[in-house]
């Protein structure tokens, strides 16, 4: 396929073949542990981007090689040593990751001490505080996607837009929030709760569940006792969410059901079956269904098989491409300790507007985190789309129902709701 950065990178490389000294790039990804399925996609995407970059002449004629370290079940105890090994053992010039959870930016000092570029997709609002609080020390650290906080406010924007479109007329203005106990879920739930009144909504229930949960009866009893217009489940484990739908649909309330992350995984549809139809979810980081996104999705599946997940791999694919492009424009990469060269690359990244397979990557300054569209900018060419999706046929992938101009199908009233 034609890579997103193809023409530009090839142009900067000026026809040079990738024949020089190899540039080591690191990736600390969960190759084992609970997130291994996603970690494998991150590895695949890095290998795909590597091959495409090298076919275009690498970075100013130097091929790149990607070295992987396993972050296992994640958390600081696994992530920090993995990053340290990439720097000490492989002398990497940059670390390009998918997501790792649980470290809450604890690995940043390891990176800052080495002075290399680090792009990750941890979707963590703490990144804003850490990098925004000391942009000089953490100059090379970028979060390639918007923080999880935006899921909360973005949902409220989406609901109001849906109401205004006339496609949905809620019975009331109540939102019931069901959150897990992990930081990710709580930040999103709190963002919905804090901003709800501003958007004209009341919170009728704020329930924290303990992970894992398979018996939803008591929670459903509360929902049925006071039916809300929207049920927002920010707990994200797919099998737990599937169980919720299996127990909700036999005796539903007239509520939209929004769920976090889990419905994007095929396991949700497989377990919930037709009960998945109608469920809404969103992502601030996935490949699009447009021309560029579909070309990537097709090439990815052709290479790694029909069961592979390009939507997950896209984050590493895009970020490795734009790192290579910005490094080439900056005059080359810099290894550990080469602060000056890496500062030049960081300068290029900060001013970058990059259109990849996930839409536009552009960073908040000084936080160096992805800007979401339409949550923080109303210009689709200036932010990464906060994609809202709906399962309309559980045997197929979900349809992208917002925001414009990326929509693949219109919103459909869930089968359990009155039309």
């Amino acid at each position: 396929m034609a890579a997103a950065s193809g023409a530009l990178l090839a142009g900067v490389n000026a026809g040079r073949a990738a024949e020089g000294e190899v540039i080591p790039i690191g990736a600390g990804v969960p190759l084992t542990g609970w997130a291994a399925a996603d970690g494998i996609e991150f590895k695949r995407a890095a290998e795909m981007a590597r091959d495409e970059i090298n076919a275009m002449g690498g970075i100013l004629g130097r091929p790149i090689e990607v070295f992987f370290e396993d972050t296992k079940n994640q958390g600081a105890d696994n992530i920090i040593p993995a990053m340290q090994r990439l720097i000490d053992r492989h002398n990497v010039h940059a670390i390009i990751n998918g997501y790792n959870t649980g470290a809450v930016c604890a690995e940043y000092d390891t990176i800052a001490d080495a002075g290399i570029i680090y792009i990750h997709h941890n979707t963590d609002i703490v990144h804003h505080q850490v990098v925004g609080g000391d942009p000089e020390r953490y100059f090379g650290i970028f979060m390639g996607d918007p923080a999880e906080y935006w899921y909360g406010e973005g949902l409220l924007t989406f609901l109001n837009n849906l109401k205004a479109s006339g496609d949905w007329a809620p019975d009331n203005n109540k939102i019931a929030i069901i959150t897990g106990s992990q930081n990710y879920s709580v930040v999103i739930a709190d963002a919905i709760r804090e901003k709800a009144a501003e958007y004209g909504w009341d919170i009728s229930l704020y329930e924290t569940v303990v992970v894992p949960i398979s018996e939803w009866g008591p929670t459903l009893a509360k929902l049925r006792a006071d039916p809300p217009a929207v049920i927002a489940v920010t707990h994200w484990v797919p099998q737990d969410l599937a169980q919720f739908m299996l127990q909700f649909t036999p005796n539903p309330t007239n509520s939209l059901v929004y769920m976090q992350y889990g419905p994007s995984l095929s396991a949700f549809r497989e377990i919930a079956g037709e009960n998945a139809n109608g469920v809404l979810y969103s992502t601030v980081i996935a490949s699009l269904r447009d021309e560029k996104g579909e070309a990537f999705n097709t090439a990815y599946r052709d290479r790694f098989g029909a069961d592979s997940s390009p939507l997950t791999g896209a984050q590493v694919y895009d970020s490795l491409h734009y790192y290579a492009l910005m490094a080439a424009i900056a005059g080359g990469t810099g290894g550990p300790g080469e602060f000056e060269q890496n500062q030049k690359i960081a300068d290029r990244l900060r001013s970058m507007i990059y259109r990849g397979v996930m839409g536009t990557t552009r960073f908040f300054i000084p936080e160096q985190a992805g800007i979401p569209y339409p949550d923080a900018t109303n210009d689709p060419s200036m932010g990464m789309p906060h994609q809202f999706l709906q399962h309309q046929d559980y045997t197929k992938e979900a349809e992208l129902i917002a925001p414009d101009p990326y929509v693949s199908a219109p919103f459909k009233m869930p089968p359990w709701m009155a039309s």
Partner: protein
Amino acid sequence: MDTFIQIVISGLVLGSMYSVSAIGLTLLWGALNVLNMAHGAFLVAGGYAAYYFGGYLGLPAYVAIPGALATGVVLGLLVYAGVARPLRKNANFETTVIIATVGVALVIENLVQKGFGAYPLKQPLSLQGGFNIAQTFVPWNSVLVCVVSIVLLVLLDFVVRKTRYGRMIRAVAQNYEAARLMGIRTGAVYRFVFAISGLMAAISGIMLSTATTLSPTMGYDPMLKAFIVCVIAGLGEVRGALIAAFALGVLEATVQFQLGVRFALPLLLLLVVVTLIFRPQGLLRKNEASRL
């Protein structure tokens, strides 16, 4: 009224899942003083074996389920032969076997993850559909789990109390050396109990995975809940485990509704602490010496 019915049904569903999880754990402790930390992993192995035979190979349920049960028995025998038997003569057997079975759990979990991946899977052998009591939907699968858990515990209690093998197990449980001197083949008793424990765990794993989902880590939560049930009932107390499991299930569902879901587990753990302080042999065991 609907709310009350929902809470009772949720409590029974939770209770049946806890009791089905507790069976193998309480048997091994009651009979052999073995606190099997690999019990959760045994459940995982049973669930995945059923998935492998029924889902991956596409065999009918009447072949897949016996295949999974046989896997549980083999696993129980392997752990006996590879872990419990070599450690049996160790002076600190009861402690070392805990550590050893933690290792067994890690091996099983990682093998399952290597073989089947980390993605959660649907157990293909589950029952579909259900019926309504007032406005509350009751899945047939939950009814099956409930019935199976009760039947298994009653059956186990019968075997232990009324059969010749059960008497041998109780003799070994009460005094290992004395049982040997009386001519009981203690090795055979150990093998039998481990095999039965593996069998029970396989059944539990199948039941739990039909009610929830298959994943390499699906054993952790049932293991914790089984431990809570066993401590409150009294470790090794088979009848008590059944009563405690359902009582705790209903209590948990009530707390989840009245106070909030997040308060249920802390309350159960508080009950464990209180039980261990004031009645360490468990609420339903007569004294510390008696087991099974």
